[in-house]
């Protein structure tokens, strides 16, 4: 039993719904109690879909438990097949139905339906949403390929052809990332055989073996399928995630290699098709103020790692914290954290993330919707880089994070919440003017942050409250708000360690010098 206030991921059947909602001609029948239909609104409200997800629920109640929930489930299947006429049917149980052990697989196969039925095992008390999505995608592919000739290759070789795997419903920028990647692939002269699960039908999945290789994006959702296709059909797959300019270069070269094309020429074509301004923008003088900005990064593993790379190499930021909620993929984050000399934060407890943000006093938080709320409360600039998503993450405009266009958009998205160069400069210059009070922050941050100084439990137990002289207090107020709490903490820690009972103006600077030493 685990106390949870907010969750980063839903239960695994939500993952199955994400696959179902992405595909064509499939339907999911979910054995679930009344209330589980709430999940529909994730798709119709957050993703703003103009149709319900292709999911039917049995909505059993207490009285059914004493009777025949199995018959209820079979009725729901019959009705769904009759009304929606899917070409393949997925069946699964949500958490409560798992407990009553009705065996969706056996019940559905007993109906002898004329279509492919894919029973899903989604252990709700062990696994979470991303695992559920990954497993569902894998099972869909596996079942659709059953009985087909998996060694099948195209009769006419008309240049290299690939599949694109890993885009689905409720994904962070999936719609636009897919478009950006398709543009790059076509520019390189590579054909796209199947995109899956996004808008793929069961027949499309049967054509997966026709490609020469797979492009595997969003590994949280598609790596198991890519591994399966490698095993079954001998298709190699890409490993790099094209987020940021340099990673996109690496991706283009990797794809060219798998396609047997000249990497330099592929790169030239891809860059022609999708001009990248990000590097020049980062090099321009106005961007100098970005140097060493303290940034805290948290998200799913692939997005967090990609963001850490971009932040470090392409923006010149200082990554002060890096973490993920996806334990399954934590290895990637650990490796990147080691590279950046950081202690990785692997947790799905958002309070822990909040404490880590407070303790590192970042100037920018790159996170999920959860971190956006944390940052908002602390008055820290923030950009969202990863699922879990909210309605804002489905903008009306074309807004990829992948590819060269994605790199352009990352530059804009991460710089916009920070103070513009000149504005920051002026704010410092006129800090003492009457229009500015010591708590003044950049105007675009809107309302005054509630409490920049977040109390964090410190490892040292404070015996007596430390006194600050008026002068020292005033000096503290001059320190920019985003580092003020850290300066305060460090000064007090220093004062305690050095037996200073009344903190003077000088103590602040003594402490600053002390903590600036490399240790």
């Amino acid at each position, binding site marked *: 039993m685990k106390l949870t206030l907010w969750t980063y991921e839903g239960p695994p059947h939500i993952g199955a719904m994400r696959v179902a909602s992405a595909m064509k001609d499939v339907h999911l029948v979910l054995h679930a*109690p009344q209330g589980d*239909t709430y999940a529909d609104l994730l798709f119709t409200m957050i993703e703003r879909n103009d149709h319900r997800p292709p999911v039917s629920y049995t909505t059993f109640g207490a009285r059914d438990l004493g009777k025949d929930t199995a018959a209820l489930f079979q009725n*729901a299947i019959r009705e769904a097949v009759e009304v929606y006429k899917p070409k393949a049917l997925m069946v699964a149980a949500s958490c409560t139905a798992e407990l009553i052990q009705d065996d969706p697989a056996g019940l559905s196969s007993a109906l002898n339906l004329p279509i492919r039925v894919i029973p899903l095992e989604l252990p709700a008390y062990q696994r979470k949403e991303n695992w559920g999505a990954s497993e569902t995608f894998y099972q869909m592919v596996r079942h659709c390929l059953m009985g087909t000739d998996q060694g099948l290759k195209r009769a006419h070789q008309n240049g290299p052809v690939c599949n694109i795997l890993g885009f689905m419903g409720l994904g962070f920028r999936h719609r636009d990332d897919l478009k950006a990647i398709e543009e790059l692939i076509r520019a390189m002269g590579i054909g796209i055989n199947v995109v899956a699960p996004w808008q793929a039908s069961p027949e499309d999945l049967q054509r997966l073996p026709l490609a020469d290789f797979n492009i595997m994006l969003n590994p949280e959702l598609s790596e198991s399928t890519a591994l399966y296709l490698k095993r079954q059909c001998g298709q190699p797959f890409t490993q790099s995630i094209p987020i940021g300019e340099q990673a996109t270069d690496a991706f283009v070269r990797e794809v060219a290699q798998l396609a047997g094309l000249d990497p330099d020429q592929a790169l030239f074509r891809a860059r022609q098709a999708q001009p990248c301004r990000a590097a020049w923008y980062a090099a321009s003088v106005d961007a100098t103020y970005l140097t060493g900005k303290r940034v805290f990064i948290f998200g799913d593993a692939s997005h967090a790692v990609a963001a850490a790379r971009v932040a470090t190499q392409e923006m010149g930021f200082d990554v002060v914290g890096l973490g993920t909620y996806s334990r399954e993929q934590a290895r990637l984050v650990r490796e990147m954290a080691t590279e950046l000399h950081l202690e990785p934060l692997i947790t799905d407890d958002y309070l822990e993330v909040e404490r880590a943000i407070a303790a590192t006093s970042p100037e920018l938080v790159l996170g999920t919707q959860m971190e956006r709320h944390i940052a908002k409360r602390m008055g820290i600039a923030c950009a969202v880089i990863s699922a879990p998503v909210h309605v804002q993450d489905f903008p009306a405009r074309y807004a990829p994070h992948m590819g060269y266009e994605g790199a352009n958009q990352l530059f804009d998205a991460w710089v916009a919440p920070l103070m513009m160069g000149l504005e920051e400069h002026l704010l410092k210059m006129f800090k003492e003017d009457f229009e500015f009070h010591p708590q003044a922050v950049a105007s675009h941050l809107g309302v005054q942050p509630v409490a920049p100084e977040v109390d964090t439990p410190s490892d040292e137990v404070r015996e007596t409250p430390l006194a600050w002289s008026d002068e020292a207090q005033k000096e503290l107020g001059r320190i920019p708000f985003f580092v003020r709490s850290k300066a305060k903490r460090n000064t007090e820690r220093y004062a305690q360690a050095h037996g200073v009972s009344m903190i003077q103006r000088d103590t602040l600077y003594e402490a600053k010098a002390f903590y600036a030493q490399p240790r």
Partner: protein
Amino acid sequence: MPNRVLDQEACAPEGSPVLVTGLGPTVVRERGQHEVFCGLTSIVWLHRKMQDAFFLVVGSRTCAHLVQSAAGVMIFAEPRFGTAILDDRDLAGLADAHDELDRVVDQLLSRRPDIRVLFLVGSCPSEVIKLDLGRAAERLSAQYGPGQRVVHFSGSGIETTFTQGEDACLAAMVSQQVDRLSPGDPRGSDAAELVLVGSLADVVEDQFRSLLSDLGLKRISCLPGRRGAERLMVNDQTRFVCMAPYLAETAQRLEAAGCRRIPSRFPFGLQGTTDWFLSVGEAFGQPSDRVLHVIKPAQRRAQLALTAMRPMLEGKRVFFFPDSQLEIPLARFLAEEMGMKVVEVGVPYLHQAMMAEELRPLSAEWRIVEGQHLEQQLARCRAARPDLVVCGLGLANPLEAEGMSTKWSIELVFTPIQGFDQAGDLAELFTRGFARKARLARRIPIGVAA
């Protein structure tokens, strides 16, 4: 016996809708996919009303995800609700679920010493595995009391629909927090004269208190109060009145505690609120002309607001999907006061006794559908092409995309809509979609080359 969804469905022969016809409206029962929330959702407004309470759902990741999704925006620093997520160890009996729960509660209460009442909220999984949360609440109350109390209720989807979660919560509070004074008790003068049952926005509560005190009522209590730890003193003189129709079990427990219910229509709209005050006045022996005199200024304001809204709704056809149990009184308001035509009113379940005053004036032309078969209801809705569809969030955008105008029903639960001064706001909620469409239909000529 509280009249709950599933008990009622048990009366209907499987598969065939039952027509209940009499002098009142036509009632049809349906069975199929229910597109409704479970009772856990009511935590979203209950925790805001009772600021010293924490709601701990004992359930699965689905429960946590549901409450989080229903709360919509994740804006709370540290919300006063959470989930003790059951895992494999709890289910396999490797861990004693009660020990685990004690540990989680300890973790929570030591973190939040400001919490006075902790609600242990049962869920579908906790009920299916028969985790006795009532016993856990007793044990934990003994441990943390009297400063911190632990109360159990069920918000599970197999037992409750959406607003029924509030009913279950308040019913549990009645069992735990009501002191029933015997006739000779010297504290008799402290017992409530009138209890308003059902959570109200503070501003609405104040308006009702003010009008009721003008009527001469002095000892008015609310259930829930603003503090979850508040105790309620009642005696055999105590009357109570429900502010919403979904409070059947709470009403039954209050009656068992010796209080008497004042039957009335629900205070929605000018007429509904007038009837409500007349019923309450009558119960306390107030002549109706005196009641009307007291409420007259408020009635005039409501009239003014409604007159402004009526042209946008009059003559339009409305279809209600089942959601919060407010469908019948709201449809009545729209028909009676706004001149709308009601095509169909879906309700998750129909509690005849609680709804009696609402149903009585309705004619046989009214079609009330109890329960739900989503696909069939959608088909009827499409065929009827109503001007306005009141439905849940899962259906709203798809229906809009089909060219229908919708109103999200959940907003009717989260927005203060009871009483005279909210009557205009209530009507406005239904006009909003039309007003917006009218704006978007405007065309300012664009100069183009001929």
